[in-house]
């Protein structure tokens, strides 16, 4: 009943290869399998050397992003059968250097995330004994969407600006900065502005919108960036026209 489907997989072993190559594997097209299951089938039965990251297989850990036929996706969230009759071309996420096979180097994103200060900053901490900070459902809704980012970095792979200008802070990092800016408990907007409004921050973005299109969690980083641009511009005009007002 199950037919086969061919996977053309990007291979690169830094110890033997100067250039990557594509290797084809025929795998059974089980109707319940996602692409990741097919990769594991290869690893277990056909070729133990194929290397890729994965963990939760339920679209929340963010490990298994790859380019499938040129589009960045989470391989645990795409059914094999939807790509029939194949072949399926599988490559490591674009715009990142390749360590081996489908594994990319991601420390750039990790460093950038740290730069936007993704944590609550307060002038004064309320003691724990006084309980929680109150936050109404409406205040929660103001930032909730941006807090859904799973750091899968598909948006970086989709963003041509990041591909051309690797210094760009990038969609997810900026969205997470915005997540804290919009949190009613936070008072660190000013500190973050120094990072996010820099040359390698929001102004690099030319509003391609692809980041939001590929986001598996509907975070809408493109929206986060444009909102920030409007706000940053307003603040600038305020500081020029009303230098006495403390923004």
């Amino acid at each position: 009943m199950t037919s086969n489907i061919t996977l053309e997989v990007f291979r690169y072993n830094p110890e033997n290869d100067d250039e990557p190559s594509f290797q084809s594997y025929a795998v059974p097209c089980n109707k319940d399998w996602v692409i990741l299951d097919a990769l594991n089938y290869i690893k277990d039965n056909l070729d133990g050397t194929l290397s890729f990251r994965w963990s939760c297989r339920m679209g929340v850990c963010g490990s298994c992003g790859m380019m499938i036929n040129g589009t960045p996706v989470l391989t645990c969230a795409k059914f094999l059968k939807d790509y029939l009759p194949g072949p399926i071309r599988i490559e490591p996420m674009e715009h990142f250097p390749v360590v081996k096979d489908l594994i990319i180097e991601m420390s750039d994103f990790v460093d950038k995330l740290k730069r936007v200060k993704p944590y609550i900053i307060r002038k004064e901490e309320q003691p724990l004994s006084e309980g929680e900070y109150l936050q109404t459902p409406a205040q929660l809704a103001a930032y909730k969407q941006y807090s859904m980012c799973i750091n899968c970095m598909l948006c970086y792979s989709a963003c041509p600006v990041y591909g051309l200008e690797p210094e760009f802070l990038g969609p997810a990092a900026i969205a997470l900065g915005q997540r804290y800016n919009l949190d009613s408990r936070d008072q660190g907007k000013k500190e973050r502005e120094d990072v996010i409004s820099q040359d390698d921050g929001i102004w690099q973005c030319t509003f391609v919108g692809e980041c939001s299109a590929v986001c598996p969690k509907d975070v809408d980083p493109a929206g986060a960036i444009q909102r920030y641009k409007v706000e940053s511009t307003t603040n600038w005009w305020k500081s020029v026209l009303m230098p006495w007002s403390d923004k």
Partner: protein
Amino acid sequence: MKFFKPDQYTIYYKGYPKLYIRVKPIFWWLKKWTSFRFILRELTSLAVGYYAVILILIINAINQGSETFQDFQSWFSSPLAIIINLIALALATYHSITWFSLAPKAMVIQIGEKKVPGFLISGMNYGAWVVLSGALIWFFLK
């Protein structure tokens, strides 16, 4: 043709034996419809620039006196100028429409826990466009 050199990746940790870095080809934007559409939008900004230049030229011509302005007017009614302007108008319209459809991303209005849907925000922008254009047309043609 390469857009950047691999040594721009010095931001990366040095301990790797060898990283493979893929370089974007110059015509990367032809591979996908979405990237092509994006580049098209970027290119149509030239038309917007063209109108800005024309506006400056008109103001300049008016300043110079009625003779210069009439020269300008006659050039403007030449077939070549009409063709150029029609193309520019089409490109500028494409540019405006793409920006209006992106507007909801930049303008997020939240009422209670709900966000105002995108089409309403674009709709408000289009509305404002029509009202302002109408006002201008009325002002100049009355």
